[in-house]
């Protein structure tokens, strides 16, 4: 898979390139700042871009802003944000443009390289890959006690449904969820159907309902 990496810490950038290459991935460009990232993506048209949240010059949210710009220019290229912390405002900024082909993972997840590459594949295929920490943070922020609006359907989820929902938000397939919770795939499907009903999501084509449920659960979508 063709990948572009934007990471300013040299030791991490080199390590990531080496690691992905060892796993048969094709890193077509590895750059250190947002401008170089946009140029590299324009030139190489990768399937996915791995982008550090903090990039020079100010090391705040340059990566997120670059990702939003990337999404505008090339909606078909998957974006995986790469960060040492869950900075939930940034995750929200990114998801506000839709969760299609978007991921947000903590840097330490690369140590489980197979899961990491799995996440890259999901994002490249238009799915999501949210770090469990990101999901927890976003849900926590969305379920603040003073949150205005109508009663939240998420509060009516059973504990089991919440577990399924969290894994779904991470971008797992039904099979992966079943394996993670040690239950049957049929049971997972049942829980998901119940979640859709509670979120009042209409029947539509493909994965769209899944994405909508995740966004509602995270309190990002409308």
């Amino acid at each position, binding site marked *: 898979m063709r990948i572009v990496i934007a990471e300013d810490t040299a030791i991490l950038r080199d*390590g990531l390139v080496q*690691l992905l290459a060892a796993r048969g991935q094709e890193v077509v460009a590895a750059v250190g700042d947002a401008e170089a990232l946009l140029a590299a993506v324009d030139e190489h048209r990768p399937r996915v871009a791995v982008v550090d949240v903090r990039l020079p010059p100010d*090391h705040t949210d340059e990566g997120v802003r670059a990702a939003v710009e990337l999404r505008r220019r090339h909606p078909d290229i998957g974006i995986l944000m790469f960060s040492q912390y869950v900075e939930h405002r940034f995750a929200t900024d990114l998801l506000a443009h839709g969760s299609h082909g978007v991921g947000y993972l903590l840097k330490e997840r690369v140590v489980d390289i197979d899961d990491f590459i799995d996440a890259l594949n999901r994002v490249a295929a238009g799915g999501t890959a949210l770090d469990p920490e990101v999901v927890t943070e976003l849900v926590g922020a969305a379920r603040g006690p003073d949150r205005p609006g109508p009663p939240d359907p998420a509060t009516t989820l059973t504990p089991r449904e919440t577990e399924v929902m969290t894994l779904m938000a991470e971008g797992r397939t039904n099979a992966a969820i079943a394996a993670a919770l040690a239950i049957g795939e049929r049971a997972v499907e049942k829980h998901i159907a119940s979640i859709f009903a509670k979120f009042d999501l209409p029947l539509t084509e493909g994965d769209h309902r899944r994405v909508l449920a995740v966004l509602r659960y995270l309190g990002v979508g409308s």
Partner: protein
Amino acid sequence: MTSPAAEKPKPTAPRITFAAASLYLIASSVLWIVGVVATSVLLLAGVVLVVTPFGLWVIAAAVSCARAFGRLYRGLVRKLFRERLEPPAERTESGVLAWRRFLLADGGGWMEVAFLLIRLPLALVNIVLGVGMWIYGMLWLLWPLLRNWDDLYTPQPDGSVRRGLHPFDIWIDTLPRSFLVSVAGVALIAMAAWTARKLAALDMLFYRTVVTPGRLAARVRHLERSRTYAVDDSAATLRRIERDLHDGAQARLVALGMQLVLLKDSLSVDAADAEQLAQSRGLVDTAQQTAKTAITELRTLVRGIHPPVLDQGLDPALRTLVAHGVIPTALTVEIPGPRPAPAIEAMAYFCVAELLTNAAKHASARQAVVHVDGIGDRLRVRVTDDGGGGAVPRPGGGLAGLADRVGTVDGTVQIDSPAGGPTVVTVDLPTKP
């Protein structure tokens, strides 16, 4: 340089010369007339316009005008008498709305307005007595000359007209007699000199009473300023630590994780292969190096936050610091009394660290002397270097930051750094914060 805590108004009477006092009376009168007219007009206009959106702005402008007068007035006093009048509190926020809010609620600014307005009687006395006595004194002194141009003709009962001054029924109409007026003129000028000095002193006393914040207000101001600094400084420090961890040890540990993945991969293939084995060894070396670097970075970071050796006391901590220093440094520590508070020890330690770094970096010193003294409830730290000198605290610079930091515990910093050196910086700290 001395931090604000040490600035106390000098109670000694100002040295006021006659020339300076006379100049002062004239200049301050002119200044006052301009100031009071401008401020009153703006103030009145503002009050009239207060029903419109412009009213408050015009009133703020009036306060600003009074402040400008105060600045000029203080400048005048500084120029003529070398006397420092403490200014009212300065604005700290920026922006136009902050400007208006500050001026409207600005006690110091309103005191300047009050000074301008209440000074009316004093100003009149100044003009009449100070300026008047001087003018008349000169006129009288020069009477023997001026009498030739006078037009003092007094009709007499007998119908004739007599020319000349006649105070108290004494006719001064001859040249010898006119010298009597000169003598009176000299006396008047001498009196004017005395009066001018008294009036100038009274004026300044009045300014200090009305405008200059009292000791308590000055103290509050110092505390506010140093608290703001302390809060900003600790936020900046935390941010720096976070950045250091993020870019340093944390990144290295993630890299270490990646290197271990590669190592594991290399071990999972046929381990008997010699080439494979060499590659694995190389990966182990890299991982080891990464771990070592991470450890070193963490240690450096921890030392920057709080050197562990400081728990054993200032003496061993400074010895370690000096031993690792860039330039050879002689150290003496004499603290006969009880140990200073930990916060003070830490502050003294970081002051020495920063001053030695400055000496090596900016002054290109070849050696330095550090002397730490405990005297009663004060801790005095003196760092002397043989570098190029010429160190001055600039706003936002290291030395100003040092003084601000030391000011948060009511300590002071004195810098003696003539061009060409040597530089002696003395930090005086209380032993308890």
